[in-house]
């Protein structure tokens, strides 16, 4: 009873460890897996865990967007690409050993620098009292939306002048990104499209379509002839019936 009676304000830390371990662990999975589909799967989990970290950090909107756009959209696209090019030879591709060595050295040193930087600044290392972190999650979607339309609401207490002086929020980047997206959409659609002329004998052409096409070009003799013959069928060699034909 004593054990369970302990108030435990460490939920944030608890979930942070879970999500961070998942993000990093599956990140390693991406790196070390040879199979490109498994890589994609690990990447999904890694990015999903990152979204969890975003939620923890109070950025609920960004977290949801991460799940929706990144995981639900971009990665599906990626996996789609994987499947379109999924030939046995390319599913598993080994990395050259020298690549590994070089990458490990460079990556390791980069990591050292980054970690040093991360923990170096005293200001960033100041722990916060996270006891009521959950309930502090506030309505950030609204200010984000406002910021995108050109109103800054993040720096509290700014005077009107200060805001107007060049700090017009994110309207401009928003528009740029929108146009960028449009351009990308058109560009990607254009690039992925190839138009080739093939000959009618190509096995990809539809013989039926071709026939129809030909018929349109040169009206067939068969079409002119009437099919509406109402008499019964008979043998062409039957002399009796042959005379009927002449009537």
């Amino acid at each position, binding site marked *: 009873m004593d054990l369970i009676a302990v108030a435990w304000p460490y939920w944030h830390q608890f979930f942070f460890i879970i999500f961070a371990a998942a993000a990093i662990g599956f990140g390693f999975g991406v790196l070390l897996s040879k199979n490109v589909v498994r890589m994609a799967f690990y990447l999904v989990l890694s990015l999903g865990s990152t979204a969890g970290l975003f939620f923890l950090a109070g950025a609920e909107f960004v977290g949801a967007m991460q799940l929706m756009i990144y995981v639900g959209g971009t990665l599906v696209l990626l996996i789609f690409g994987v499947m*379109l*090019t*999924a*030939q046995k030879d390319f599913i598993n591709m080994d990395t050259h050993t020298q690549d590994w060595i070089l990458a490990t050295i460079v990556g390791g040193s980069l990591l050292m620098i980054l970690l040093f930087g991360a923990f170096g600044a005293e200001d960033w290392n100041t722990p916060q009292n996270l006891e009521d972190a959950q309930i502090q999650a506030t309505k950030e979607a609204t200010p984000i939306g406002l910021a995108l339309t050109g109103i800054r609401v993040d720096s509290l207490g700014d005077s009107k002048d200060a805001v107007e002086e060049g700090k017009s929020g994110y309207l401009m980047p928003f528009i740029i990104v929108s146009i960028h997206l449009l351009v990308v959409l058109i560009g990607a659609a254009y690039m*992925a*499209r*190839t*138009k*080739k*002329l*093939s*000959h*009618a004998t*190509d*096995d*990809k*052409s*539809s*013989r*039926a*379509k*071709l*026939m*129809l*096409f030909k*018929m*349109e070009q040169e009206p*067939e003799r*068969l*079409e002119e002839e009437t*099919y*509406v*013959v*109402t*008499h*019964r*069928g*008979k043998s062409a060699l039957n002399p009796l019936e042959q005379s009927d034909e002449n009537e």
Partner: protein
Amino acid sequence: MATSKIDDPRVIEFDVRTDEMLINMGPQHPSTHGVLRLVLRTDGEVVSDVEPHLGYLHRCAEKIGENLTARQWVPYTDRMDYLAAMNMNLGWSLVIEKMLDHDLPERARHLRVIISEMGRIASHLVAMGTYGLDLGSFTPFLYGFREREKILNLFEEACGARLTYSYLTPGGATADLPAGWTDKCLQFLAEFKEVIPELHTLLTTNTIFVSRTAGIGVMPARMAIDYGCTGPVLRGSGVYHDLRFHGEERYTEMYDGYVFDVICADPETGLYPESNYEFHGDSLDYPEIPRQAVLGDCWHRFYVRMLEVVQSVRLVEQAIEKYEATSGDWGTPIKLTQKLPAKEAYMETEAPRGQMGFYVVGNGDAIPWRVRARSSSFCNLSVTAPLCQGILLADIPAIVGSLDVVMGEIDR
């Protein structure tokens, strides 16, 4: 509407080209109507080549026919097109009668019309239902089967079997229709006529159905004839040809005095014959042809079957009237060991799936020297490969389903 403007098919536009895949569709596949196997060469969803592989149901029926007498072989015809076994019986009976120059009493002729047209209705109901199934609609299938069950009940009463009847035999039928059968049949027809508009609503005029079938698998008349397509497949391409009108006299005289239409669109106007058939108000009016439909496409093939059902209903009603009016013999079956002359005879009949031909060579013995069955589905299926090029994967069930093949008949 007969033909819309077709783009030059030599110019093929395709999106990202990906790997060619070789896929086995069947023999265990839900939409290959039995054990058809199609080997597809696809590029993503686009099918570039289809090769049908047959023979999974091959039972050497022709070889068996060389060891049995003419009447003994009747049950084997049942097992060819098992969905229209009555019509198979009829084909075989007629060719043996032709060989023996055996003429039927009038009552037997009307009986045969009743039975074979009922068989046609049953068969077309299955064709319609399974076609809905091929396109992902399960409900019409059961509606079709519900009505078919009623026909099978009637058949069971007439001959004791529900699928393989061996009812129509050379010389007539194994028995006369039981007393009261015709009344039940008329009652069924009255009920059935109310169901037809339902089926039209669920499939023929359904927007999704139309968009799945209209303009798909377009087969010009010339191509249909060239590939030997017959029956609704041929008529769906706008060819006015129905053996009940244009067949040999021995067959067409069965239909002497009957009034019915050949269901076939006029290639000039693209219109089907008017529904001159007034029975159940105007609910049996044919639904309108959708704008997207091209003559010879899957939709038209389906439509022809649907309308043929109405014509069959019409024929059965007339036949029952005539049958009731005549009295006498229903035709005695030939002897089991009836000797066949040393001649040969070929005869085609209009089975639900097309022209079913039988060829018999006799040598004076009871056992024929050679038996040959010209299968309608066999020829109809042969058009699959040219039709299924450059289409999407989902169109294959639509096209194969619209050809309405029965593997038992193809493989024999």
